[in-house]
């Protein structure tokens, strides 16, 4: 499995120059306090990782990798692992950038950085959890379109629902979340990834190339 993780990271290494350029441009743009910077590395890492699926499809890698003694479940596991490694690297970069920018602008606020990064991480894990089964099922091109349609549909539906219903979240639920968010949030992310992995594995085990 390690070899398969390395393969995806090597593809990303090949495109890293463009990503670094993006981060620098956004860093300069956000030097006056624009918080978009916090989203850039993690968002870019997800986009970069999506490109590994495009390379795989273009060179029909999936048929070839099925001839390896790795097993199909490990091929899926390797994709998730490589993506998580990349996400965590992106989080560390965001953290460092946040500190540098904060120090530069004399408004360093760790609690603000922490909460923004947690939100960004959660959003990206959610995105990846939805994205992977779609990419495994439909391939890079159709999967990307599916992901786009899916996100638009889900956010529109949620928006409509929240507008039409007046859901009152009980105060004790909010209090529990505020007190234990550092346990609840990672737990939800792990569950999302686990369910996503199970779905992707099922798709990949039965797929033909």
């Amino acid at each position, binding site marked *: *499995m*390690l*070899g*398969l993780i*390395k*393969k995806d990271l*090597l*593809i990303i290494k*090949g*495109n890293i120059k463009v990503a670094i350029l993006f981060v620098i441009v956004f860093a300069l743009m956000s030097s006056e306090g624009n918080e978009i910077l916090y989203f850039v590395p993690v968002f870019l890492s997800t986009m970069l990782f999506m490109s*590994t699926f495009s*390379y*795989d499809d*273009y*060179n*029909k*890698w999936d*048929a*070839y990798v*099925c*001839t*390896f*003694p*790795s*097993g199909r479940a490990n091929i899926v596991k390797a994709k998730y692992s490589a993506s998580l490694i990349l996400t965590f690297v992106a989080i560390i970069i965001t953290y460092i950038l946040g500190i540098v920018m904060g120090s530069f602008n004399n408004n360093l606020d760790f609690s603000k950085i922490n909460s923004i990064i947690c939100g960004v991480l959660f959003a990206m894990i959610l995105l990846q959890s939805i994205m992977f089964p779609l990419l495994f099922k439909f391939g890079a091109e159709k999967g990307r379109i599916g992901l786009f349609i899916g996100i638009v549909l889900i956010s529109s539906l949620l928006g409509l629902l929240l507008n039409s219903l007046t859901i009152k979240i009980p105060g004790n639920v909010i209090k529990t979340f505020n007190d234990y968010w550092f346990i609840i949030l990672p737990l939800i992310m792990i569950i999302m990834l686990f369910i996503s992995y199970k779905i992707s594995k099922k798709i990949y085990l*039965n797929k*033909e*190339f």
Partner: protein
Amino acid sequence: MTNIIEIKNLVKKYDNRFTLGSIDLEIPNGVIVGLIGENGAGKTTLIKSILNILKIDEGNIKIFNKDFNKEENTIKEDIGVVLDNMFFPEILTPKDINIVMKDIYKKWDEELFKKYLNDFGLNINKQIKTMSKGMRKKLEIATSLSHHPKILILDEPTSGLDPVVRNEVLDIFLDFIQDEEHTILLSTHITSDLEHIADKIIFINKGKILLDKNRDDLLDNYGILKCDIDSFDTISKEDIIVYKKNKYNYEILVDNISKIKKKYKNFIVDKITLEELMVLMIKGVK
């Protein structure tokens, strides 16, 4: 000679469009087996079915006397594969391939891989996408050989290559087969390649195996009897495997060529090439 691959009742269905099988196949140890047939005959489907790239509907596959269903990963440690236009993402380099494969195959031999790269004149730092078709193919072959496989499974390994590179590639296969423990299963529609290197020929058409013979038996015993249109009726029906009517003559595929030559002294009976055999078997009338 023991069988290294044994396939029984293999069936693979593609909706209602195409069915492969039922295929029964035995491939002995230490030989080069050529799988021939026209485009769409089922060669790639058979190879992909053997490797579990496609899911078979029925049948049983044994490789190295091990059940493929139960010991797939163990079996694949000893198989080297070259597929038609299916390989590593082209942004990678041979150096990257080495880094990846070190953690894929237990017996990956870094030195051997580098030796092949050197022998084939391949630059270890060159991206695959910048390589010519011949170079890519050599890289695919080098990759397939560098974990000391016992079986090579190759789908159209010489298609699209110029004659010089094709001969180089065939030499690599001949070199591989020098070890008596090594076996090659090779699909191609360039039948002339097989006339030089194959020990056994399997002819597949519309998903079925039409012929499964040793190359020498095939090329020594099969022939084409040519006769004009008026003389066709003088040929005994039992001597005709298939025939093809041309504008001015008939071409008849015959078996046991020496007997036929004696029986029909007034007709020309030529030895057959694999290409002629393939065309006659596909286009001929029974």
